[in-house]
C-alpha cells in the first residue's frame, strides 16, 4: 500500500516534470554564494577567494581593514557591484513573476508597463541637461530616473483605470503606448546631445549597466527588493487565482480590483527602483520566471523565491562575463542579457507552439 503510494507520487512528480522547490532553492543559494565570491575575485586584478572572504570578514567584524589595494578593490568596488547585480537580478526575477500574473501572460515583461521608458527619459534628461551630478552615473541620475518612473506610473494608472479594474489588456496597451511616446522623447534628446561623451553615457545607461555600483546606491534596492518579495509572497494564493481569470479569483474570495491595483503599484515602484540603479536590463525579468516555472511549477509560493534566487545568480554571472570578456573595456550588462535572452526566448516560444498551447 505504502509502496504503491510512493510509486504513484514519484510517477506524478515525473509526469509534471518539476522538482521540489526546497532543494532547488538550496542549490541556487549555494551557487549564488559561489558566484558572488567569484564576482569579487575576478577582474583586472584577480584576488584569491580566501583573501576575498578575509577582507569581507574584517569589514563585517569591525576590525581595522588591512591597508593595501585589496581592501579598496574588494570592499569599495567589487562587493557593492556584486551585491547590486544580485539585488537587481533578484528584483527582476520577482517583478517579472508578478507582472506576468498581473497581465495574465507568461511572456510578459515589466517594461511593458512603460515605467522603464519613463525612467530612461528621466535619466537622459539628467545626463543631457546636466541636472545630475555632472552627468556622471550617480545618485542624481538615479533620482531623476526614479522620478521619471513614478511620473510614468501615475500616467499609465490614470489611463488604465478608466473602464475600471485595471484589465490586463488595457494595462498593457496603456503602458506600451505611453512607453513608446516617452522613448520617442528619449531618442530625440540623445540625437540632440552635442558631445560624444554624453551620447556614450546615455547609451551605456539605456542598455543597462551595473558599473555605477556604490554602497550608497545599494540602499534603495536592498530595502525595495526584499520588501516587494515579502509583500508578494503574502499574496501568493491571490496571484495563483489571477492566473485562472478574474472571475475565478473573485469566486475564491479575492478582491480582484484591489489586488490588481496594488500589484500594479508594487511592480511599478520596484521596476522604477531597479531601472534607476541599473538602467533597463533586458530579458531577465521575462526569462527568469519562465525558466523557473519549468523547474518548480507555476505556484507562486515556490516560484517567487526561486525566481529571486535564480535572477540574482544569473545577473551576478552575467556581470562577471561583462567585466572580463574584453580586456580594454567592459560591456553593458544589458548587451549580454539581450544576446543570451533573445535566443532563449525564441526557443521557449517554439517549445510552447510545439506543445500546442
Amino acid at each position, binding site marked *: 500500500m505504502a509502496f504503491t503510494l510512493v510509486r504513484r507520487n514519484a*510517477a*506524478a*512528480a*515525473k*509526469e*509534471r516534470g*518539476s522538482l521540489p522547490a526546497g532543494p532547488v532553492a538550496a542549490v541556487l543559494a549555494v551557487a549564488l554564494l559561489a558566484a558572488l565570491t567569484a564576482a569579487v575575485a575576478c577582474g583586472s586584478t584577480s584576488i584569491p577567494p580566501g583573501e576575498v572572504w578575509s577582507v569581507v570578514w574584517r569589514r563585517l567584524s569591525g576590525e581595522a581593514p588591512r591597508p593595501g589595494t585589496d581592501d579598496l578593490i574588494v570592499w569599495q568596488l567589487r562587493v557593492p557591484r556584486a551585491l547590486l547585480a544580485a539585488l537587481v537580478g533578484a528584483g527582476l526575477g520577482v517583478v517579472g513573476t508578478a507582472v*506576468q*500574473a498581473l497581465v*495574465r*501572460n*507568461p511572456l510578459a515583461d515589466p517594461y511593458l508597463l512603460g515605467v522603464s521608458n519613463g525612467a530612461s527619459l528621466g535619466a537622459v534628461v539628467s545626463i543631457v541637461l546636466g541636472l545630475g551630478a555632472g552627468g556622471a552615473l550617480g545618485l542624481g541620475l538615479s533620482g531623476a530616473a526614479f522620478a521619471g518612473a513614478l511620473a510614468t506610473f501615475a500616467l499609465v494608472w490614470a489611463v488604465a483605470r478608466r473602464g475600471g479594474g485595471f484589465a490586463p489588456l488595457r494595462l498593457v496597451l496603456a503602458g506600451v503606448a505611453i512607453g513608446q511616446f516617452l522613448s520617442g522623447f528619449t531618442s530625440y534628446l540623445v540625437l540632440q546631445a552635442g558631445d560624444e561623451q554624453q551620447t556614450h553615457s546615455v547609451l551605456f545607461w539605456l542598455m543597462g549597466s551595473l558599473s555605477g555600483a556604490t554602497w550608497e546606491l545599494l540602499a534603495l534596492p536592498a530595502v525595495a527588493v526584499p520588501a516587494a518579495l515579502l509583500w508578494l*509572497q*503574502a*499574496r501568493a*494564493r*491571490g496571484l*495563483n*487565482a489571477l*492566473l*485562472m*481569470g*478574474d*472571475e*475565478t479569483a*473573485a*469566486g*475564491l*474570495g*479575492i*478582491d*480582484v480590483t484591489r489586488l490588481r491595483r496594488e500589484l500594479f503599484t508594487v511592480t511599478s515602484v520596484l521596476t522604477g527602483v531597479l531601472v534607476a540603479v541599473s538602467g533597463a536590463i533586458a530579458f531577465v525579468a521575462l526569462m527568469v520566471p519562465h525558466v523557473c*516555472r*519549468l523547474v518548480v*511549477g*507555476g*505556484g507562486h*509560493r515556490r516560484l517567487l523565491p526561486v525566481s529571486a534566487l535564480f535572477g540574482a545568480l544569473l545577473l551576478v554571472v552575467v556581470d562577471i562575463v561583462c567585466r572580463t570578456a574584453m580586456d580594454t573595456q567592459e560591456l553593458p550588462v544589458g548587451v549580454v542579457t539581450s544576446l543570451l535572452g533573445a535566443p532563449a526566448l525564441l526557443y521557449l516560444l517554439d517549445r*510552447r507552439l510545439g*506543445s500546442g*498551447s
Partner: protein
Amino acid sequence: MRIDIEDLHVAYAGRTVVAGARLVAAEGEITGLVGPNGSGKSTLLRTVYRHLKPTAGRVLLAGTELREMTPLQSARHVAALPQERGSDFELTVREVVAMGRTPYKRAFAGEDAADRDVVAQALTDVGMAEAAGRRFTALSGGERQRVLLARAFAQDPDVLVLDEPTNHLDIRHQVDLLVLLRAQRRTTLVSLHDLNAAASVCDRLHVLHEGAVVASGPPRDVLTPALMAEVFGVRAAVVDHPLTGDPLIAFDHRAAADEAPTAVPLETPTRG
C-alpha cells in the same frame, strides 16, 4: 443554504443587463437559469460569486446580505465555476484544485494535511485522481471542466454557482458532469443553454428575458410551447422523454416562431 435574489439590477460595461430580477434558489435543490443569449444569466451569476456588484437590489445568502460579508467570508459558502479556461502557467491539476482552499488560508500559510485530504477527495469525486500531477492545460476540455469542478468542491461550499458548465463538452462529458451535479447535495445555481439538459437536471427553473425573470417553477410548468415562442422565438413541442419521462422539448429547426405557419397541427406530420 438558500439564495434569495431580490429586485436585482446590474450594469455591465455601461449597460443595464439585469433589471429587476428576483428568484430563490432553495436549499439542497438544483435551480436552473435559462434564457436567450444576452438575457443576463451570466451577469446575474457573477453577482452571486461577487465578481460584479449590484447597482440596486439584494443578494441574500441564508438571509444575510452578501455585501455585509467580506469576499473571503462569502467564498467559504459560495463556490463558482465561471466560463474561464485559465492560461498556460505550468500549473498542475493538483495546484488548480488546491486553489479551492484559498478562502480558508492566511497569508504565508502553506497546505496542511486537512487541505491535502480535501483536495484528494475532490479529485476523487470527479474521477480525476490519477491526473493530479498532469499539467492543467494539457487536459482535454471535458477533463479541464471536471478539474475546475473539483476546485469548486475543494472550496467546501454550501452553494455551487455554475455558468454554462456543459459548454464545449461532447455529449458524454455533458452527461457525466450533470450526473456529478445531481449527486451533490448542495444548493446549486446553474445556467444552461441546453433546455433539455435543464429539464432533466433541475428541480426548478427560472427563465430570464431581457434581464428579468419572466417564468419560474418546475421544468414541466415553465417550458411550454408558448414560452419557447415568446422568449426564445422558436417553435417547439413538449413531449415526455421516452426513457426518463422528463419533459423533452422538440424544436422546429426549419423555421423560427414568427416565420412559420401557425396552423400546423402538432399531432399529424405534414409530410407523407
